[in-house]
């Protein structure tokens, strides 16, 4: 519109105004938007606006072979792709009655925890950036890159590994990988006190994040909150322990909780989970050489594989919460229906809309990052 054609609209006098927050905004994770109604700096109501990342995965998967979808699923969540592959593979294995060799299960656990470490470093790095502490973000991204190097060595892909297939994993662990992984864990563990000093014990962060976006345990259960966000309200629930899959029941780890339910608690839970993931990875590194055997079980010709009819609902604990796949087969070479239940479909929509009310405008980005909402999971 040319400036000479512009005519101001006459609104009735009001202290309220609407603000479009996103989709291109540094305080928004991924492509996502909010319409917030403000009075001064206080948020009166927020409305999530998704769809900017909709790629129609569920429809696409119905038109592709079972094995082809392995290349599609990790793209549903960019920062944490491994749980997507594993969960989809678990569903097919349940339908097809495949028994995954033990060695493959341990390799899967190793990848899942590597992915969790990388995603958590990304998550609180992003949170730090929304409060102006960019150093934490740079450190987090740099340390995540070291994990991606190991992913590259193991799978050939840095971000999307496409390494888990129904029946096991694609390749054997390279020689010397476990030693390099072990020294990476030593390095990451030595970095944790640095992160504490820089971020988690930083008064700027604590004062900004305390009591921001707080919810009680009751509210969290009512709104369907899962994962670290639920544990930050004091409930020790983890799919890895309470609905175990793979070999998590043979591993020794704790489930960290925090009582506060606010943005600070959520980040402290992630901080404690870094330590637990390192602990799990050390156990895997210790046990994996003694577990010999194949890395995948024989599967039918994947290009003409008619998975037996049936349905299965598999859940895993991703870094963001409960991730589930509902897969229906009618005995054909393609899935009849795949439904992805991403944890962020709760966190980024209802929970965020509820938590944003009454907060200040500058905290909206902080609340979103503290929930670790992942918009591609919402849009799918």
């Amino acid at each position, binding site marked *: 519109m040319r400036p000479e054609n512009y005519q101001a609209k006459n609104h009735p006098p009001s202290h309220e105004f609407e603000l479009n927050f996103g989709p291109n905004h540094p305080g928004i994770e991924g492509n996502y938007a909010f319409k917030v109604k403000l009075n001064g700096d206080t948020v009166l109501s927020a409305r999530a606006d998704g769809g900017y990342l909709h790629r129609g995965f569920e429809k696409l998967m119905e038109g592709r072979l079972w094995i082809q979808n392995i290349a599609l699923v990790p793209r549903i969540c960019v920062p944490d792709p491994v749980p997507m592959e594993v969960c989809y593979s678990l569903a097919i294995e349940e339908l097809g009655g495949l028994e995954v060799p033990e060695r493959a299960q341990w390799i899967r656990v190793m990848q899942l925890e590597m992915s969790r470490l990388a995603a958590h470093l990304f998550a609180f790095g992003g949170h730090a950036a929304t409060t102006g502490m960019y150093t934490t973000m740079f450190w987090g991204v740099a340390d995540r890159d070291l994990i991606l190097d190991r992913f590259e060595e193991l799978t050939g892909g840095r971000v999307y590994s496409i390494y888990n297939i129904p029946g096991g994993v694609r390749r054997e662990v390279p020689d010397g990988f476990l030693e390099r992984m072990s020294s990476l864990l030593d390095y990451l563990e030595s970095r944790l006190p640095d992160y504490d000093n820089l971020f988690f014990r930083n008064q700027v962060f604590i004062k900004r994040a305390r009591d921001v976006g707080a919810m009680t345990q009751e509210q969290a259960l009512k709104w*369907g909150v899962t994962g670290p966000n639920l544990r930050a309200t004091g409930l020790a629930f983890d799919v890895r322990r*309470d609905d175990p899959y793979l070999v998590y029941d043979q591993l020794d780890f704790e489930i960290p909780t925090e009582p506060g339910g606010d943005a600070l608690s959520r980040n402290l839970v992630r901080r404690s989970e870094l330590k637990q993931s390192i602990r799990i990875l050390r156990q895997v590194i210790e046990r994996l050489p003694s577990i010999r055997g194949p890395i995948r079980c024989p599967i039918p010709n994947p290009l003409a594989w008619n998975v037996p009819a049936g349905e299965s*609902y598999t*859940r895993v604990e991703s870094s963001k919460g*409960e991730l589930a796949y509902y897969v229906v087969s009618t005995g054909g070479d393609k899935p009849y229906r795949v439904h992805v239940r991403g944890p962020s*479909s709760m966190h980024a*929509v*209802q929970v965020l809309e509820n938590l944003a009310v009454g907060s200040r405008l500058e905290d909206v980005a902080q609340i979103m990052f503290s929930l670790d909402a992942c918009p591609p999971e919402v849009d799918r």
Partner: protein
Amino acid sequence: MSKELNIWLDNLLSDIESVQFQRRNSRRVRVDVGSEALPALLELLQGRASYVHLSAITCVDWIEDGQFELVYHVWSYETRSLVSVHTRIPRDPGVYLSIYDLYQPAAFFERDIHEMYGLYFEGSPDMEKFILTEWNGPPPMRKDFDGEAFVNEHFHWEQYHPQWLKDLEEEGGGITVRPEDVR
């Protein structure tokens, strides 16, 4: 744990008729119920058997039967088990009841199903478009919507031949190093 679960389920199922249930393993139960009894069953599961977490609602389009299948996955933090409640409703007119009163997360799933399948949930708080705001066609997840045919009909991607591509082809087809130059 499993014994406790059995007692709870037996108590529950004695209250409702026309329920079939199938135990798949120690933590997965499948229940098939008529569409008129489903809200009551969910209310019992939530109120009397601690299934407080609605994990997901899935819609499956069984076009040959002329039915939609709705699957409600509910999880109990106490008994650590997941009950999948299956029900079938006619595809036409495609109206069902919302369970938002029982489970608040249902609002998102019902809105999503309405958008992708055109199934309307009475009593759901929000049936507005969320993902497909600029889409006016039929609900795309229905089996009678063919995405590939739609693309071929509406987007002439085979005729896409812009000037920059022509220029590139004149210079050697987009290959910067020709095979004969490679030593």
